[in-house]
């Protein structure tokens, strides 16, 4: 994890998916900003939040 902005995006992405996963446009925007796939973001989030 490089900086706070990346952390925020990953946490925000996780929160949106957990809330209902219907914010498809916003989720796609975050994936593009991070240049990561859904699975990659989930892995990072799991490491960061649970670990």
């Amino acid at each position, binding site marked *: 994890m490089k900086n706070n902005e990346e952390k925020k995006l990953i946490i925000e992405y996780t929160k949106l998916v957990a809330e209902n996963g*219907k914010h498809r446009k916003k989720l796609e925007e975050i994936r593009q900003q991070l240049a990561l796939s859904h699975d990659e973001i*989930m*892995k990072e989030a*799991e490491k960061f939040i649970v670990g």
Partner: protein
Amino acid sequence: MSPELEKTVQKELNTISHFSNPYISSADLKIACGQNETLMELYTNMVSNCVRYLISVCEFMLTNIDRDKQFQEIDMKRKVVHNSTIDSINILARNLKNAGKDNSWISKMLGNRSAYAKFAQLIAFETIKEKEIGNEE
């Protein structure tokens, strides 16, 4: 199992979860509840609480990063959701035992709030990954 197949299986497992759940996975818990309507209802309620807990943790972390003034309010919400999540996990575990099912996994977290938190977050991650896959259809 051949080394190639083992590698493929491991790759698939890594996609499912970065961590192996040291308590019990959501899938195994669902199997344990089986066709028992009461257990399935308690399982669904517990999973719902775990997802709510993950959301409250995310809100807490975002507030912490931003040094938001609402920090205490968000932290209190997280604690309240944590308590109700612990209750729902314990209720499911007791009902599993009453139904003659294995609930030995609960002994690994009894009295340890951070263990409950880790379990809840792992269950929530398993659940939301399924959600996203569902939305792609």
